[in-house]
């Protein structure tokens, strides 16, 4: 077994493009769910809006990339308003229902034959819409070390992506420790109490939905640009649930949780896959038990098992405080 290769693959994934995408998606969810208590099950919709805005506007309408990114942010704000206006006055579970439906509507619209010309139907959009971005790449040769290995384009995405994550995280940190963040956390605990103290709860929930949504669209930008293509089925409900997994793995309502969660999640996924793959091909695991083609599915089973263990033995996540979690019992 080639342990150097396994380590290289695993560490490259731990700091790679997918980790960045899911960290950003989970940072947005952390604002919604972790701090405000908004049960947004449609984070994939915000990623889709970000990704499709960039791809469609650049490929079909010849927008410069920077303008397409700006419009993408604008679109995610519009989506947040559309979702929030009718639902934020209702109980939390209604928001969950509406958001999961909305993200599916967005995916189905993107797949539909009607808009095939602009959105590419079920094949999505492939093109050089990231040209403006990759033209500025100073790392044409990529990186090849025993522990990290990226090609030129990926390295550029990884470097700019982590820079973006750090900036976003810093802004989040400033926001949640401010009096504004205190109002959000109070809303998570008890809306009526916050209302009785003179705060406009609806306004704060809307602001939280918009900010988390914008960060979600950032994840969509990275998703689209890194692959130079968008495909509607990448933005299904599974994406939202993986983002939740990442968040809860790290510990909800902790600033660094999304990053830690995402790194661990992707490290484990790739590490387990590579270990299994090599063990099968080296004959340590007999072919009748696990075939090479089954490794992809089995890694998800094992990661799922690992997450179940985590929820049983450390329900508060990596950064969470178990005592704080226990308080939720409303004793």
């Amino acid at each position, binding site marked *: 077994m080639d342990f150097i290769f396994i380590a290289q693959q695993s560490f490259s994934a731990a700091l790679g493009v997918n980790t960045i995408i899911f960290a950003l998606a989970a940072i947005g969810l952390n604002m919604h769910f972790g701090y405000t208590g908004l049960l947004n099950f449609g984070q994939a919709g915000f990623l889709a809006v970000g990704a499709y805005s960039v791809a469609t506007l650049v490929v079909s309408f010849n927008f410069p990339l920077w303008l397409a990114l700006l419009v993408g942010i604008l679109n995610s704000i519009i989506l947040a308003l559309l979702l929030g206006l009718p639902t934020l006055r209702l109980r939390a579970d209604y928001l969950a229902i509406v958001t999961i439906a909305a993200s599916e509507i967005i995916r189905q619209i993107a797949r539909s034959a009607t808009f095939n010309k602009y959105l590419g139907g079920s094949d999505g959009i492939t093109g050089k819409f990231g040209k403006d971005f990759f033209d500025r790449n100073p790392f044409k040769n990529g990186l090849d070390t025993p522990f990290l290995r990226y090609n030129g384009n990926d390295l550029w995405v990884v470097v700019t992506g982590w820079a973006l994550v750090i900036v976003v995280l810093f802004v989040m940190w400033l*926001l949640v420790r401010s009096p504004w963040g*205190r109002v959000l956390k109070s809303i998570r605990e*008890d809306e009526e109490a916050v*209302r009785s*103290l*003179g705060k406009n709860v609806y306004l704060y929930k809307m602001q939280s939905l918009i900010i988390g949504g914008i960060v979600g669209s950032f994840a969509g930008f990275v998703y689209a640009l890194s692959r130079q293509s968008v495909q509607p089925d990448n933005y299904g409900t599974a994406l939202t649930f993986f983002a939740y997994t990442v968040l809860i793995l790290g510990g909800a309502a902790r600033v660094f949780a999304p990053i830690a969660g995402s790194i661990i999640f992707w490290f484990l996924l790739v590490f387990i896959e590579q270990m299994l793959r090599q063990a099968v091909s080296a004959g340590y695991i007999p072919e009748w038990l696990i075939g090479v083609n089954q490794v992809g599915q089995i890694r998800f089973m094992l990661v799922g098992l690992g997450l179940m263990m985590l929820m049983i033995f450390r329900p508060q996540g990596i950064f969470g405080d178990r005592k704080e979690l226990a*308080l939720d019992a409303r004793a």
Partner: protein
Amino acid sequence: MPALSHNNARRDIALAALAGITPTPGVSKPDPIIVVDNVVRKFGGLTAVNVGHLEIQRGAITALIGPNGAGKTTFFNLLTGFDQVDEGSWTFNGIKISGTPPHKVARMGMVRTFQLTKALYRLTVIDNMLLAATKQKGESILRAALPFLWNAQEKAATARSEELLTRFKLIDKRDDFAAALSGGQRKLLEMARALMVEPELVMLDEPMAGVNPALKQSLLGHIKDLREDGMTVLFVEHDMDMVRDISDWVIVMAQGEIVAEGPPNIVMRDKAVIDAYLGAHHDSTLEQDRG
């Protein structure tokens, strides 16, 4: 914040103002802070609240009593904007506030507490207090990320919170989660938090529910202090000893309507009140009932 004052200057003023008023439902008061007219709230076929005319005297402690299901809490919810009326209107300081959302009602100086205490459990005691400070610059999303714009205000609010926590004997719990407090301490925290809003009218929904006798005495003292600090207090309560002890005026509700009001000693002897609590025929024999 004035220190704990145990003189009764304001009580004497309130009692003098209320003296000589005929104790009949809907009677007008010399200086009302709240005036209610024809407020009706129906839940399906049930009329939960039906109040013709009611005035609450400024600077006094007024108790709202009545048997279970009389509509006291619903009436509270209506006045504070947490529930919508079917008919009627009311004013606060002469300004019509019917239909105003609850957060605006609170900003105008009318702050309530809840029957089931609403402490913010996973926030510390000091954060519970700070939340309630008014006109915070740092609560605007545009300024939140720029601490130098709100640091000074935050410090001032923290100092005021600590003063109130000291007064309510919660200062030792400053950095504990609110969930770690006992039931009675949560009642104290909720009252202290309401004071951070600097209200003119404090509305307490069953402040004594679930509080042990020792803490009851100190809560009573705190409520009297609110009046001495110039606030008006309206509270819902079932504990008759407490009502008799601290209220300057008592309003009695039964089946959604005001059936009596007046000074505590007179109201407690009122036939309508005894009927409301015990039933109209409680002292008549069964034979007479059949007849």
